[in-house]
């Protein structure tokens, strides 16, 4: 149970600002663990190489997730239909995206099903689009995908490419009320070893524990950055946080004025997740690296939508999984893939 609190914090951080409030997911996971017992976490090597592993996510709008909470059956319905139509039996579940409620809600489902969770995911962070995974880079197909709501409505869809999977998945999610449980990227244990990001859950837990210590005053931000090979981007007060919608894509721009030097101004551009950090025309950090905003006072990661003028924040960068830095990785999830006409640069430590 203490793991859950740490995972909550780690998952918020790895969401790079895009997670929204996670209380409900935390409580749902806790309840499932209380009812069904702890969830074993295994590595892909613990399974037979041809054992089936099924990643799960929730898709939808964070504001809907906190109001029209999951019924708790969505992921189960999605996995059941997958097994039924494909005629397979899943040996282990996997979090599709090690961020936000996509860490906590799959834990609840794994507890309910009595299946282990694999210590891996497909991104090692949060991304807006489900085709932005290392699986896509490796040529692994997201299709088929099952999408389910709380009513028991479920679709099993086959698509020709991962981008279409994302597009259709999102369409269906909208029709279902902007929140749905999804199972996709069916893998064998061997494929997880070959193409997945290994150790994601452990990483998330570890990060969360550091954040807990930071919040209690037992550790410093510098310790955390040293441990994660991260970098300090900026410390300052928010002077503006505005959001616009371009082609129905939200774009948020957060402007901070320097704490120690009020002549310095940094801008963060986000589309749900924080994607670019710029100071004086110089790119300080950019996707696929993670850009996180922490409350200067207690080290808590702040979601983009809750940033308000006057807040004192530390902006930091965490390195993405190494595989993202390949040419193909940058093409799939780098700045240009998100609509920014700039090139990827690694942040300074």
């Amino acid at each position, binding site marked *: 149970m203490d793991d859950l609190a740490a995972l909550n914090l780690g998952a918020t951080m790895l969401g790079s600002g*895009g997670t929204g*409030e996670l*209380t*409900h997911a935390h*409580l*749902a996971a806790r*309840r499932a663990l209380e009812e069904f017992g702890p969830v074993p976490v295994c590595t892909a090597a613990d399974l037979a190489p041809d054992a089936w592993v099924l990643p799960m996510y929730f*898709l*939808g*709008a*964070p*504001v*809907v997730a*906190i*109001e*029209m*909470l*999951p*019924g*708790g*059956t969505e992921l189960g319905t999605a996995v059941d239909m997958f097994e039924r139509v494909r005629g397979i039996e899943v040996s282990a579940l996997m979090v599709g995206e090690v961020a936000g409620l996509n860490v906590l*809600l799959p834990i*609840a489902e794994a507890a309910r099903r009595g299946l282990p969770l694999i210590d891996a995911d497909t991104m090692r962070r949060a991304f*807006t689009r489900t085709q932005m995974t290392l699986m896509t880079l490796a040529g692994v197909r997201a299709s088929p995908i099952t999408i389910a709501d*709380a*009513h*028991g409505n479920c679709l099993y869809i086959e698509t020709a490419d991962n981008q279409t999977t994302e597009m259709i998945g*999102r369409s269906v*999610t*909208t029709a279902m*009320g*902007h929140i749905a449980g999804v199972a996709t990227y069916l893998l064998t244990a061997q494929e997880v070893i070959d193409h997945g990001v290994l150790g994601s859950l452990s990483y998330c837990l570890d990060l969360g524990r550091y954040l807990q210590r930071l919040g209690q*005053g037992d550790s410093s931000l510098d310790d955390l950055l040293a441990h994660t090979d991260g970098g300090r981007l900026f410390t300052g*007060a928010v002077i503006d*946080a*505005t*959001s*616009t*919608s371009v082609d*129905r894509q*939200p774009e*948020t721009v957060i402007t901070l004025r320097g*704490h*120690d030097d009020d002549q310095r101004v940094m801008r963060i551009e986000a589309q*749900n997740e924080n994607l670019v950090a710029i100071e004086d025309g110089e790119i300080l950090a950019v996707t696929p690296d993670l850009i996180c905003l922490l409350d*200067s*006072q*207690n080290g808590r990661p702040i979601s983009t*939508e*809750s940033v*308000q003028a*006057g*807040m*004192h924040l530390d902006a930091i960068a965490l390195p993405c999984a190494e595989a993202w830095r390949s040419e193909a990785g940058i093409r799939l999830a780098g700045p240009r893939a998100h609509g920014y006409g700039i090139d990827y640069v690694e942040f300074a430590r």
Partner: protein
Amino acid sequence: MNGLRLAVDVGSTNTDAVVVAADHRVVASHKTPTTPDPQDGIRVGIGAVLSGVDATLITQAMLSTTESTNALVEGRGLARVGVLRLGAPATLSVPPLYAWAPHVVKAISGTAAVLAGGFQMDGSPIAPLDHEGVLRFAAACTGSVDAITVCGVFSPDFPDQEEEVAEILRVELGPSVPVTSSHQLGQLGLLERENASIANAALAPVLTILVSGFVAALHDAGVEAQVYVTQNDGTVIAADEAVRLPVLTIGSGAINSVHGAVRLTGLEDALVIDIGGASSNAGILTGGLPRDSGYGAEIAGVPTRLRMPDLVTAQFGGGSVVDDQGHVQLGGDGVRLARRRAVTLTDVAVASGRMHSPSGTRGPRLATSLVGEALASIDRELIRLCERTASSRASMSLVALGGAARFVPVDLPGVSEVIRPEHHAVASAIGAATAEASGGIDRIYHYDDVGRDAALHDARALAVDAAIRAGASADAVRIVAVTEAPVHYADGTNYRVRVKAIGPLQEVDHTSDER
């Protein structure tokens, strides 16, 4: 003609009373220990502070107390609540009351049910309302609950169904069982709003007793005034509003001293520390208002989405016990628990010369090393409190308030100056006496349908209305915060808009009253 204001602040150790003029000048003040039944201390305070003051000049009276918080934490004096949620089959992953402490659930135990109903973000129903279920719920509640809450998914945006169900329940159960509709508490976020509604229903008897007791005490003292209660952001609401929405009074005790700091010093930006008998609070003033924490308040471990000011609490105060080595015992009940005459922080402060003995008598003789060690450790705690609260590296002024404010040293590293205003001991009551009224709004607007300007205009107007309903003077209400957050992954331009408005209390024209 502007009248006088009387405020009573019931803290965990002391009950403070003040009389303040319209220009915020303190006319009279009094401090008395808080009594097990708070009403006794309130009467003592009112009596003392009115000696030498013409009671008929009091036009507004405020009450500030931690009773609401205490009642919820202890599960004491609460109503039995029937909890109805509309949204099945969604929301079942976290049932109502899940996060509540078992002893409190027991105290408020009634029936809880989740029925089909509620809405999606776009207003389409999650499932048709289960009318039969509502009637079954009403039957189950009959005779076994004192109050009911109804919480429907997306009710802040689509309140009609909640209202319809509340009306059915009122008809079935009769007027003696009040029904709270969650949309009146206005916030998006199902669990937090549901919890706030439940807390609201559970606290009804607590507030009713508190307010009627206060009104009776005022009446007996010859005061006929408009009565207010402070709420959790330090602004006030009319007493009958507080009885109707008691959840708003949770956590109101601690914040008043921060407001008090503004009145007493005229500073708009400062660090404020209020040192009480058993605990100390630190907060930040920015632009004359306490900084909002931004996070929902957790009450007795239960998440709510109440607007809460940013306060850091430390478990030391004037009554904290100091042991033989000079170590200050943090937490615990301090002097109240010690059976023999224990050495307290106040004793140490007196012995060191930082303060004069509050009772005028000489305290115990203390070893120099003990005094030195205790002072050093308390200074460390104070510095730590400052650091946790102030995130700006630029030095701020520190305003020291509270009964034990005098043991804050004149110089503290990291702080540009330490100010200890006159009347620091009753700063909380002064904050309550000079409080303003506020109102807010939190909802989703579809900018595609109404346009951003029209939406913000509407939101501002609604916030101003809310502030006026709370008692603010209509021509002096100002908007203090507007935030817009986009709703992601949803088609169309949808924004969650939050607006807060504040204004000085509507003045009562005393001369027009018939006597």
